[in-house]
């Protein structure tokens, strides 16, 4: 299926002359769990706010379900189908848990009471407590409940696991996976927790300085990217011009370490053709990919 739920093209946005987005291209296929990664200030929240119609891009194009979020009537159509968890996880301080559930329910004809009951129990939410009296973790959980029970086709989650303990993180991730599997919901989430992205995402985009530096299938990425260690038995050859794809080369003693983003086979062959070289290959974690790409950018 070649349908993209979220699509941006050349998205640009500046605040007081400071570029937050510098031509961002993003394509989120329907049914995927899409991890959106980047350092603080890389442009994640700006992107998400643009997708929610809270900000208007200076130039470029953003589409959600093929509609423009900044447009008032399209914006309403989009928000009917989107569950959004904002970065701050703040809700009305004058409402109780039960009140905000009741309040939100009124806006969504497809509201899922079955899921609501399930999450109230699973997340152990105190229904009669006022929102300011909730712990940060409980507020995050409540926000997820409110986003999911809308009967949304797309969840846009800005750091959803912020403030959750490891058990709650696992519960939340499991629910997200179940939603993607049984309801076909697309999940677009930003996170600093690379391990949770690695666990549930099938697609990943790493954003840095407002542009996408790496994007694609996480499994393909892990196949494409590799770390090579070349050890020389004898004299180290000088001035090796490594083949295309050797992004980062580090030399120490008679050992060269190469971080390759593509063309691993070519680089391995080149290394093996050098006199006295033995080559070892190591798989690369998402964390390494993140650190290397953000560093080299």
């Amino acid at each position, binding site marked *: 299926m070649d349908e993209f739920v979220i699509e941006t093209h050349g998205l640009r946005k500046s605040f007081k002359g400071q570029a937050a987005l510098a031509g961002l291209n993003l394509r989120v296929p329907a049914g995927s769990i899409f991890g959106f990664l980047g350092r603080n200030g890389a442009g994640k929240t700006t992107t998400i*706010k643009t997708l*929610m*119609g*809270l*900000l*208007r891009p200076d130039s470029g194009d953003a589409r959600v379900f093929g509609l423009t979020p900044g447009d*008032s*009537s399209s*914006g*309403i*159509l989009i*928000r*009917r189908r*989107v569950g*959004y968890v*904002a970065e*701050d996880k*703040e*809700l*009305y*301080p*004058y*409402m109780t848990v039960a*009140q905000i559930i009741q*309040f*939100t329910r*009124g*806006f*969504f004809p497809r509201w899922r009471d079955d899921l609501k009951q399930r999450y109230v129990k699973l997340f152990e939410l105190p229904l009669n407590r006022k929102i*300011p009296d909730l712990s940060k973790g409980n507020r995050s959980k409540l926000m997820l409940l*409110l986003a999911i029970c809308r009967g949304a086709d797309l969840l846009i989650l800005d750091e959803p696991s912020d403030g959750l303990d490891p058990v709650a993180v696992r519960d939340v991730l499991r629910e997200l996976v179940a939603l993607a599997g049984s309801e076909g919901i697309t999940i677009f989430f930003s996170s600093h927790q690379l391990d949770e992205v690695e666990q549930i995402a099938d697609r990943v985009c790493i954003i840095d300085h407002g542009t996408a530096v790496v994007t694609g299938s996480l499994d393909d990425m892990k196949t494409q990217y590799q770390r090579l260690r070349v050890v020389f038995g004898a004299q180290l050859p000088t001035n090796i011009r490594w083949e295309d794809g050797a992004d980062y080369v580090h030399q120490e003693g008679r050992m060269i370490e190469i971080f390759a983003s593509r063309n691993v086979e070519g680089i391995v062959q080149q290394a093996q053709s050098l006199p006295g070289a033995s080559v070892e290959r190591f798989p690369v974690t998402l964390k390494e990919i993140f650190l290397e790409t953000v560093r080299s950018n």
Partner: protein
Amino acid sequence: MLWYKGWLETRGKMLLALLITFFPVVMLRNKAALNAGIGEWAGQIATLSFFWTIVPLFLAGSGIKTQTLLAKRGLHASMYYTLSLPVSRLRLFATRATLGFIEAAAILALVPFAMPFLFPALRNSVTEMTLFEYWLTFIVCSTVFYSIGLVLSTFLDDLTQNWTSLVIIILMWSGAKSLHLPASLDVFSAVGKNSPLFTHSLPWAPMGVAIAAAAILCTTASRIVSAREY
């Protein structure tokens, strides 16, 4: 549901507005002079009326920024939740603005009805019709002040909005005084010395001016709400 949210948001302020409205009345009641006759305290009635017309300010809100009586943690960040609802910003604005005004009008409606009880002297000098006209006048005139609050609430937080509006209105008031505005344009005197309490007729011209100015301000506020980035 938006009405419900608006009610939860404003009920504390409504209480405050009620206190502000009746506090001076109750204070003045103990002054013996008040029982003398309406002519003797016309000046004070004028001041009070002006004071009452700005009560609605406290209830002004544009429906985007979350408000409560007391500023609480995370107050404005929760506006992202409001903006994630499938509702146009115009509807958010219209609902909240209308609700605040209805509440203000309800509080102010208590004033003319309570006055004859508070000031027995009034019973002899004004009819119910006059009291109704008087109420209508300051409701209509207060739309200007309420709308100033609305415009400011689109980008200022609650407390700042209230203070800024007050300062603006006081500047307008002293401006109107020093410029000697003709009575037909002077919204301030329409609730004071030219109010139905003393003239026994509705001040149509300043009421028209008030509604026109309020309409312009409301349109401005709604434009800001629709166009603003959050």
